[in-house]
């Protein structure tokens, strides 16, 4: 959708600067939430037992 602008401003790059910065930031945010879910919320007994003390100390609902 922003292809024409991108090409006009920086022909050597596929993404304009805003996209080139926002995409990796978005990816990092998604990864951050996935890891947080695994450590703090996943109900799998393995995840719960391994992270038990960390969950209690970081005040996540645990039991």
């Amino acid at each position, binding site marked *: 959708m922003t292809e024409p*602008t991108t090409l006009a*401003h*920086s022909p050597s*790059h596929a993404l*304009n*600067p*805003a996209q*080139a*910065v*926002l995409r*990796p*930031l*978005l*990816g*990092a*945010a998604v*990864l*951050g*939430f996935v*890891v*947080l879910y*695994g*450590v*703090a*919320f996943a*109900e799998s*007994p*393995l995840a719960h*037992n*391994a*992270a*038990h*003390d*960390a*969950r*209690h*100390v*970081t*005040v*996540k*609902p*645990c*039991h």
Partner: protein
Amino acid sequence: MIFQRLIWAALAVAVVVGSVQSGVQQLQAVPIILAAEVYESQKVEAPAAAAAPAAAHTHTDGAAHTHAGEAAKEWEPADGAERIFWTWVANVLHAFSMALLVFVVMGFSLARGSNLRSLTLAAWVAAAGWLTFHFWPSLGLHAEIPGMDAARLGSRQGWWVLAAASAALACGSLAMLRNPWRWAAAAAWLAVPYVVGAPHIATDPLAGFSGEAQTALRQLGTQFIWATTWVSLSFWVCMGLAGGWAFQRWVRPALLAVLQRSEAPVAGAVQAPQ
């Protein structure tokens, strides 16, 4: 290239912050957990536990059992070095997720034209992180020690997410809106989870214990709230310092290299740096 930088920088910060957190909590919070687990084996089934079978947790399904009893069913780290190691792993992963989110907010601020120094920006983001991920959810759902009864796990997790999301939106309103009403908007967001109300059971969370154990656990519970407060404060101070340093060293140059590649204004950069 930016994504890789974010990952490696967050990992470096996570090892430092997670290790410091492990050290701090090993000294003051973990002894409280271990002390509470000694009493946990004396627990008799509380009326509240019977009333909430949906919690489906092993702590509520039997008259009296210990964590050692659970080990027969599911793996759990052995007390001592193994347990300390897995707690460290969990702390580092938790710090990794927080560092990633801190970098995302800092990177987004930079893309919007913030001209704050990395350390100053990191301090603001870390303060928002403490409010979002510790203080605001913990105010409604206090830190729990093992053995306490509580409302159904899913409902508490849901409320925790609501409280954290509301606090994050409040911080976002203050940081991004220029309207004088932004304070009202932030206050309204902060009120949302408390208008909904945190899920609590009607009975005493320690009803399953008698006499001496109940008194001791109540004391441990209060100590644990303070212990977790100090852990979270040291965690977010470390995160601000290490995160600010790592962002300045690795992330900021990569972001600026791309942002300055073109003179075209970045979308959303309404407020240009003076």
